[in-house]
């Protein structure tokens, strides 16, 4: 009897590749599903779309496991990259992802480029408390390339070097995007506090 919980990711991947072992795959998925799903959801802001991308990600993982996965690397890093690429593909198709890597980002007024609420998709499915739901709405209002850096850092815990590799930009560009994301979020928090203050005065 195999105790899957005692195996590391590398051993679980071996079991699954060799025998199509359901238990091994279940354990792998259980360990990382929330991280992957959270990243996808936070990027698209819509549960149905997040479900589709999640499923598409693992369809690719399963079909490519023998061909493109190199066991020297971390399995979860490989899966995260597939999830990221699938997510960006969907956002590109929706034209909600504006690639600004060729521009000088200092010249762009990022606050002007905040997405409007209508573009952020349905939020009603998410079972978060009010504070967290509001925070998620603010994240959704960031331009996608800033949101991407924030979420890669938060959910995948990537360093800026890893973020820059995954997003195909320089480290300084990744740092710049994070800086503008934090500035924009601070403005959104301040705006929210102002609105709340006004509401209580009425």
């Amino acid at each position, binding site marked *: 009897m195999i105790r899957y919980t005692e195996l590391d990711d590398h051993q679980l991947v071996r079991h*699954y590749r*060799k*025998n*199509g072992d*359901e238990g091994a*795959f*279940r354990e792998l*998925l259980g360990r990382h*599903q*929330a*991280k992957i*799903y*959270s990243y996808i*959801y*936070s990027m698209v802001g819509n*549960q149905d779309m*997040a*479900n589709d991308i*999640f*499923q598409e990600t*693992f*369809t690719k993982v*399963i*079909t490519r496991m023998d061909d493109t996965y190199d066991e020297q690397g971390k399995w979860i890093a490989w899966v995260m990259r597939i999830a990221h690429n699938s997510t960006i593909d969907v956002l590109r198709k929706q034209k909600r992802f504006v690639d600004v890597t060729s521009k000088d980002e200092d010249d762009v007024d990022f606050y002007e480029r905040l997405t409007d609420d209508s573009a952020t998709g349905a939020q009603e499915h*998410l079972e*978060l408390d009010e*504070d*967290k739901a509001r*925070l*998620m709405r603010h*994240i959704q209002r960031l331009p996608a390339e800033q949101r991407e850096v*924030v979420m890669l*850092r*938060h*959910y995948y815990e990537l*360093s*800026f070097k890893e973020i820059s590799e995954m997003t195909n930009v320089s480290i*300084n560009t990744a*740092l*710049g995007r*994070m*800086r503008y994301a*934090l*500035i924009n*979020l*601070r403005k959104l*928090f301040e705006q929210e506090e102002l609105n709340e203050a006004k509401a209580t005065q009425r």
Partner: protein
Amino acid sequence: MKQKLHNAEELTVKYALNELDPDESKLLDRAVKEDQDLLIEAESQRRTWQRVSALPLIQPPAGLIEDTIRLAVAGRVPKQSRIFSMTPAWRWAAAASILAVVSLPLLNVMSDTPVETVGVEQTIPAPSTDDAPWVDRQDVLRLQNQANTASASKTLPDSTTQLRPIDPNSPGSASRPVKTLQQTGAKSDPK
């Protein structure tokens, strides 16, 4: 006079996310002592990031996970059962063995002596319009139809003329009396 740090903005972000290395930390320490605005920006970014960090993990729906696992199981067939995953060398070896086995009935026709062909499949239908050897669904090379065709009636006599009787004086032949023509691989009639 204040000297502006050229990468101060990057350093404040790294500070906010706790990713400064010791050298960068010293640089930023020195810079914020000289520039209060930089200190305010760095602290503001750190607090904003703390709020972002409160964003919880979101669990996918249970049904989605079960669907994904079903997909994973269906998508993986154990390699032992994949006939086409055999290496080319194995496939060639298997084809050669099969060819040797299925050629027995053909040789049977050429021999005067009926040959016992137990275990050799005889009833698999071959393509009726083509004389060429063919391969069935199990990758078995089939030759049976050639024995019944017009071209076979021409080639068979040519083949039998090349057969020679075994010399009774040759070494090894003394123990087996010659009753019929013998061919390599064909069994003699035990009767």
